[in-house]
């Protein structure tokens, strides 16, 4: 197949954004802008579904590869997907249209510019998951900072400037070291092509430093304790759609990077640094869960829960076992769906009451029952109830962790209990109890678009919770071969 399907997937949102840019910016035109961007992203979603259908699940080779000369004799523009990346691509194309539907209530000014930023963001995010060249990856990885900075800074809450700066500078600081590492890899091996690097490996002498350089970037982006502090700020101040993108997709870039690059390129170093990752992950799980318990702001609570969930992900990845990595990937997908939904849930009541404080709510179950049911579903998914995707991910990760390191697994399991505690407590305080605040009685239940978005997110959460086979089948061989390659490289060196 010669049609550059991945490039069109990457480019299509940008073309949509360009189109929006050249339309007139009138308030009456907002509806058109919304339809255009919705149309673009839905087409993109359909293309990615088409990809999934035609994706060959029986091989771990990269598929739909495109290669083009870019910087002469140095870097080729190369994209392709395997079983691991395709799920993230689909997650991206699935979440973005929902974000665009959700902007109705949360974004009041400059809607067109907001949609442009989201569309460009989508291009970059898809690019990250498709890139098969380190420089191309870095390009997309960093470029995403620009639209996100603007989304937080222009449309964010009262402390938006501080949060936007913190987000930008933290991530940039982490990433520049990765750039040094990428250029060094070029001079060490003579290529930045990921497939070639997989084949030829990197000299053991350099692996530790290179691994640390990549780690500094991914750790900030994941985020891992102790460099997670930008995340709560960014989440709290970002508009709902921004928080959703940030939680659902941006955080996954780092997890994906860990699997694709840290494990794939530096097996020796990964083996050495596994204890470091375990420690940081376990601290993240317990520590941020405890912090989440004490939060009074709902968005902040969910943000801290994200850090804890990503702790599970990093833990699972570095067990370097089939179940662990598969669990991590499913946990990332699940977190993408569930945290997106939770942020949207918070957004729904924020749009009505303009408060995110937990104690300003209580007893709303009688007023808005539909909302309460869906919120309940996502709360349970977040704490990993069997029957939701959250359970599959956490279960697989813990299983692998028990095989590898008993103590770590036990502590991490405590995190599951804490997770249940803060999520249920949040739900209890917001939804149940006595309706003291009379203002709350005026709340209206979910409107059609909100209902639609939350249902869209609920369906896959439940479906893959009961029947995870489609996900597991897609990633199984790729993960398996990744681990085999990891093991052989480890022995050879």
């Amino acid at each position, binding site marked *: 197949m010669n049609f550059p399907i991945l490039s069109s997937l990457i480019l299509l949102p940008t073309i949509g954004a360009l189109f929006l840019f050249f339309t007139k*910016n009138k308030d009456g035109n907002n509806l058109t802008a919304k339809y255009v961007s919705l149309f673009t992203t839905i087409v993109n979603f359909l293309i990615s579904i088409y990809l999934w259908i035609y994706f060959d699940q029986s091989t771990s080779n990269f598929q739909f590869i495109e290669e083009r*000369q*870019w*910087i*002469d004799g140095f870097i080729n523009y190369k994209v392709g997907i395997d079983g691991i990346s395709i799920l993230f691509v689909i997650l991206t194309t699935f979440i973005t249209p929902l974000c665009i539907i959700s902007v109705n209530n949360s974004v009041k000014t400059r809607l067109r510019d907001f949609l442009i930023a989201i569309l460009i963001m989508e291009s970059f995010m898809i690019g990250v998951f498709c890139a098969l060249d380190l*420089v191309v990856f*870095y*390009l997309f990885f*960093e*470029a995403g*900072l*620009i639209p996100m*900075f*603007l989304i937080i*800074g*222009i449309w964010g809450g009262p402390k*938006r*400037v501080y949060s*936007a*700066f913190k987000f*930008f*500078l933290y991530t*940039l*600081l982490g990433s*520049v*070291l990765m*750039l*040094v590492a990428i*250029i*060094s890899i*070029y*001079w060490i091996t003579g290529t930045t092509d990921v497939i070639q690097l997989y084949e030829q490996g990197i000299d053991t002498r350099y692996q530790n430093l290179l691994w640390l350089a990549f780690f500094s970037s991914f750790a900030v982006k994941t985020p891992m304790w102790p460099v997670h502090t930008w995340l709560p700020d960014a989440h709290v101040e970002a508009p709902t759609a921004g928080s959703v993108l940030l939680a659902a997709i941006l955080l996954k870039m780092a997890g994906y990077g860990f699997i694709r690059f840290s494990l794939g390129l530096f097996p020796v170093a990964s083996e050495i640094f596994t204890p470091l990752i375990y420690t940081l992950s376990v601290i993240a799980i317990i520590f941020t869960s405890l912090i989440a318990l004490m939060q009074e702001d709902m968005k902040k609570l969910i943000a801290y829960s994200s850090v804890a969930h990503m702790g599970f992900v990093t833990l699972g990845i570095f067990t370097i076992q089939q179940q662990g990595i598969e669990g991590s990937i499913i946990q990332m997908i699940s977190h993408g769906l569930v945290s997106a939904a939770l942020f949207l849930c918070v957004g729904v009541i924020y749009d009505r009451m303009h408060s995110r404080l937990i104690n300003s709510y209580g007893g709303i179950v009688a007023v808005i029952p539909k909302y309460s049911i869906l919120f309940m579903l996502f709360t349970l998914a977040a704490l990993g109830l069997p029957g939701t995707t959250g359970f599959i991910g956490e279960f697989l990760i813990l299983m692998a962790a028990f095989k590898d390191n008993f103590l770590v697994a036990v502590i991490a399991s405590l995190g599951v209990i804490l997770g249940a505690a803060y999520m249920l407590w949040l739900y209890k305080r917001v939804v149940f109890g006595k309706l003291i605040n009379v203002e709350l009685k005026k709340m209206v239940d979910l409107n059609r678009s909100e209902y639609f978005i939350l249902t869209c997110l609920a369906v896959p959460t439940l479906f893959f919770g009961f029947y995870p086979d489609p996900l597991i089948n897609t990633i199984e061989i790729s993960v398996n071969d990744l681990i085999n390659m990891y093991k052989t490289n480890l022995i050879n060196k």
Partner: protein
Amino acid sequence: MNNLNLVLPEIFISISIMFLLVLGVFKKDSSKLIFNISLIVLFITLIITFNETFAINRKTLFNDSVVIDYMSSLMKIITLIATFLVLVISSSYLKTTKIFKIEYPILILSSVLGMLIMISSNDLIVFYMGLELQSLALYVLATFNRDKLKSSEAGLKYFVLSALSSGLLLYGCSLVYGFSGSTNFDIISNQLNSNEYVLTFGIVFILVGLAFKISAVPFHMWAPDVYEGSPTSVTLFFTMVPKIAALTVFIRFLYVPFLNLIDQWQMIIIFLSLASMIFGAIAAIGQTNIKRLIAYSSIGHVGYTLAGLATGTNEGIQSSIIYITIYIVMNLALFSGLLMLRRNNQYHEDIEDLSGLSKNHPLLSISLLIVLFSLAGIPPLAGFFAKFYIFKAVLEESMYFLAIVGLLSTVISAFYYLRIIKIIYFDNQKDQYDNDHSLWLKFTITLSTILVLIYFIFPSQLIDLVSRINII
């Protein structure tokens, strides 16, 4: 006689300057005419340079004191294009601030002539001659708005400090001459062997002089004051054009006569580079005047350019030239934007004046947004690639410290670029600015912004242009 074709650009521009001076004396109110003729002169010089010298490999003239090779032609062309655009976008500024006088374009032309001579120089004396011609014209330009106290102050400061550095430079030249017996670069390079430590003094003095001209830390003190005080159109000229010429001389001076002494000067360049990058990034944070901020930011960018030179390889030189070219394009866009901040015949120069610009002037703001992110070095904009090539060359020589500190200082410098973006996009709006800008201004800002934006689609073209530069 045939060989004189090679210096035809210089000859043509000198005759034009004299002609324009005479014209200016005898014809009244001829400032507009002279301005337009100067543009034509620049354009014709550009064409002559392109036709006569671009295809030539390497030729020397006048007892080897002038060299015409690919690098000199390329740098001359960049200089001329940049000057042309600078002149063309500053006309409305000059008219508004009532300094649209006959001397202005003539001084610019003289300083360009000095730069062309510098770029081609292969001899210490020729190089010094070009440098002084260039500087003398710049002193006058800096104080051009003589009714303003700050402008006079800027000119005086620039003159005194620049004269001092020229003195140091001359002293260095005389030391080098004393030890090698010649002022010609080629002969010096043959005479040297790396054991002559005393010669290092000569090199250091010359480097100090050159570092002053490109405002590298710790010889940068004049830059912020001069940039702030001079008329904006002159600041625009300062930030870009003299740096091209000085960079060329830097390259030729380090790589032709003194390449064997690389151990002696490499540490100096690395220090200049690191100090400029860090200082430029940190000192810019507290600024409130855009021109001052640009001064510090240009100090930082000079640091990155020098990092390429510190490598001692062809790749390093090429990456420096790419860097300065991309920097010029970004600066053109930035200053075109600055020249658009006009309200009631007043130009605004404080960062606060940009507040909420995005609501009233969305297109101007988006250009500034793109350019500022590019200056901060965020992919996929051109500024990222400029830094990318530099650090690629630096890492090839395994200079990890330089690369890591350099990249960390880009993070610091990102802060103040972000601050401007914040003021443009996140803050509350102020009054509208005028919208009736000259066509050239609009053209320049559009063209340079688009170049910055889509550079990543055609990154190879610029590399092809510079890859023929082979000094070593």
